């Protein structure tokens, strides 16, 4: 089954490529400069729609939307979400259901075949770049004026750098990003706090403290490998390389960006070749060498890591807010009932008390270019602005209908109604906010104000966020958009380079390669076109800077 899948994936890629080429040649010849006269596409749109206005189409309209179907709350036509949405906005959404397992593939296919719905949500920043050259996706930045709520957030919230990063070579952006008011980081490590108490250890603040702590645990439990990690599939050390790397100014794993921005030299440099990256690897290597970090951390499945934790063979593991509540505590309650575990504020390192600024962007919405020619185009943009960016729309998508799914007290604090449950917040509730009502749906509910984001957080998680919010937000690297040819070339270089960095990172960390060979490693990267790749990035950066400031 899965073998075939790979073959198909390759086919999609090849298909897309040929299609992109066909499209781009078609477009370059037939491109006509449309005046931004939107009077013909205003059917259903509100004359005056601004911040604070409730959007309601002047006549009933409907839009197709690509829908990422989550198995935990399968799409249901009878959800209150759909009914209430139509009642409030006069808009009917017609979902094209795609299984979550292969959402990206189908999205690529539909866009490639010119058969995509107008609204294409659940697209992460960067993913849209592949479709830009084909002309199938609308340059949404041209139409921001139709979206007062988004415009306001772009102006008021400190996200300009992030949004600049979305710009393509033409200085426009093609994705309506989900935006968080403040950067937020969910991932850190979880520690068995009962062991800390027992050994009279403080909660570690830096990665050096973590080392000291692991040492002490190892001394008390010599047979254990105190830290055994998860989140290694499909990216080895996905979280660990990311959070440790961030502390050393060189995120790896999930956060690996190919090139890092060097503030001093004002140039991009290759991420896997920086000193910070080396220090990160040396730190992890030290943990492995001294038997503090399980070497299997980088290859085992999540389930294996959970088993080790549950069986008391390890005491520290990567975590987010959900995994504490949904995985570790239930697991441990069945095996070691008096165990306590908590997520600690993400440890810091030489880079100081920082959080990466990129965490302010969430997945967002692409608009099919065809939508621009629909007579309801303006109404659609106003509708999207209301649902995804207005405070009322966001609250609706997340919490539902006041009085039905939640209540609000004088201070503005929301509470689920007695019979509604989600995230285990109201265990007695018989109905589920996601499954039975269709709210708190990953397709529609994300980003927003910190208040709204944290409204579902437990007090413990809010405490965690408070610590993280006290940290300095790291500047976002400047935009360096490739043109179509460069992107193709870059992809050819990126993949082997990244694979090699991953592979050699593991060898260094696991002690299979000595750090005395670091220079040899750098030369091997050069042989894989590292220098040319970095030059390409810097060239694109210079060009963009010259053209768009």
């Amino acid at each position: 089954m899965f073998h075939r899948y790979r073959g198909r994936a390759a086919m999609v890629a090849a298909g897309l490529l040929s299609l992109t080429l066909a499209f781009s040649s078609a477009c370059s010849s037939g491109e006509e400069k449309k005046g931004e006269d939107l009077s013909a596409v205003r059917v259903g749109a509100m004359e005056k729609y601004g911040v604070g206005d409730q959007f309601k189409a002047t006549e009933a309209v409907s839009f197709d939307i690509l829908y990422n179907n989550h198995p935990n709350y399968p799409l249901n036509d009878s959800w209150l979400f759909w009914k209430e949405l139509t009642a409030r906005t006069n808009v009917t959404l017609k979902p094209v259901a795609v299984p979550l397992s292969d959402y990206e593939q189908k999205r690529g296919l539909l866009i490639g075949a010119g058969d995509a719905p107008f609204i294409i949500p659940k697209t992460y920043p960067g993913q849209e770049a592949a479709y830009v050259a084909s002309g199938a996706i609308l340059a949404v930045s041209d139409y921001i004026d139709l979206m007062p709520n988004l415009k306001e957030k772009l102006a008021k919230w400190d996200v300009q750098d992030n949004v600049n990063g979305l710009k393509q070579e033409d200085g426009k952006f093609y994705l309506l990003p989900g935006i968080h008011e403040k950067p937020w980081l969910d991932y850190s490590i979880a520690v068995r706090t009962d062991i800390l108490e027992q050994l009279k250890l403080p909660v570690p603040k830096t990665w050096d403290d973590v080392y000291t702590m692991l040492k002490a645990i190892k001394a008390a439990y010599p047979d254990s490998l105190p830290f055994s990690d998860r989140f290694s599939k499909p990216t080895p050390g996905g979280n660990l390389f990311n959070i440790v790397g961030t502390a050393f100014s060189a995120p790896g794993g999930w956060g690996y960006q190919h090139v890092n921005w060097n503030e001093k030299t004002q140039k991009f440099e290759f991420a896997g070749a920086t000193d910070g990256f080396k220090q990160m690897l040396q730190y992890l290597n030290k943990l492995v060498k001294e038997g503090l970090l399980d070497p299997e951390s980088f290859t085992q499945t999540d389930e294996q890591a959970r088993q080790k934790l549950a069986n008391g063979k390890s005491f520290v593991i990567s975590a987010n807010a959900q995994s504490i509540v949904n995985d570790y505590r239930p697991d441990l309650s069945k095996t070691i009932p008096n165990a306590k575990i908590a997520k600690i504020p993400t440890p810091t390192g030489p880079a100081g008390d920082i959080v990466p600024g990129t965490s302010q962007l969430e997945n967002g919405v692409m608009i099919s270019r065809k939508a621009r020619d629909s007579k309801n185009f303006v109404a659609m943009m106003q509708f999207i602005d209301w649902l995804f960016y207005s405070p009322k729309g966001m609250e609706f998508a997340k919490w539902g209908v006041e009085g039905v799914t939640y209540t609000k007290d004088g201070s503005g604090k929301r509470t689920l109604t007695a019979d509604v449950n989600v995230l285990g917040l109201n265990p007695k509730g018989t109905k589920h906010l996601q499954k039975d009502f269709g709210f708190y749906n990953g397709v529609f509910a994300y980003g927003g104000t910190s208040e709204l984001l944290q409204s579902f957080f437990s007090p413990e998680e809010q405490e965690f966020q408070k610590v993280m919010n006290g940290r300095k937000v790291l500047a976002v690297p400047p935009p360096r958009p490739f043109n179509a040819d460069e992107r193709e070339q870059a992809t050819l270089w990126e993949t082997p380079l990244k694979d090699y960095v991953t592979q050699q990172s593991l060898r260094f960390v696991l002690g299979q390669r000595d750090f005395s060979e670091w220079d040899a490693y750098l030369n091997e990267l050069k042989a894989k076109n590292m220098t040319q790749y970095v030059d390409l990035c810097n060239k694109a950066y210079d060009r963009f800077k010259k053209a768009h400031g």
Partner: protein
Amino acid sequence: MVAIQTPRILAPKGKRGIQPSRGYRIFQVVNAIVLSAVVVVTLYPFLNIVARSLSDEAAIITGKVTIIPDGFNITAYRLVMKDEMFWTNYRNTVVYTTVATFIAIVLTTTYAYVLSKKHLKGRGLLVGIAVFTMFFSGGLIPHYLLITGLGFKNTIWAIVLPNAISVFNLLVMKAFFESLPTELEEAAAVDGMNTYGILWKIVLPLSKAVIATMVLFYAVSFWNSWFSAFLYMDKLDLFPVTVYLRNLIAGATGAGSESMIGDPDAVQAAITVQSVTIVLTTLPILMVYPFIQRYFVTGVMLGAVKG
């Protein structure tokens, strides 16, 4: 199993028969050991899944479940069977598989029969057309455009028609038909039977073995297939159960973003629910095997050896 029985056939009457050579006996032993190892390797994961589907979540988390269920319970079965969409998709799978297999058998048999006739003009071209598709394909997007253009999207035809003829199966069947003695057909023709009569009354009754094999090949591949349904279906109630299963596993293993995760109860059940769904999905097609296997051995051999 087959290999172990062979010596009896070779040496039916003790010393008088042909004695298997020493080398051959060693080969037999090695064969038996290797094949037993293969059996263990393939059977263990399946038994493990079955055991998990019947076990307590806690036992699975602590890694206690191997091939014997720990903390026996059938909660997960109840949970899965309660889900209407599971049964809707299951019914789809049965319908798609049945219709698709039927169409595939009819088309493959008739095509293969025609190709097996050496006196057919343009036979080489017809074989060429079929073989060409084994090596070249239009690519995914043209396929999609074609199917959509034909109006097959969101209908059963998108699933049952495009894959109706598997060229490999076609060639196996063609070889089988070529191995049938032409004298039989000539005799029937002399007695006044037309081509269809010959195919229906003479050839097909003699070809039960290969047809049973083809039914098995096709049915298994249609039962397991999810890709065409994923491509051409936009509605949940049209998906086969394989898509349901695939999504379930992906959803339960994805590193969660904030709203990806349902309530703890649902996540708790996930590992067992996955196993149950796998067991329920595999079971029917698994039960078909024993009944067709005997044809399977003789059928394919007959056709293939001839070539």
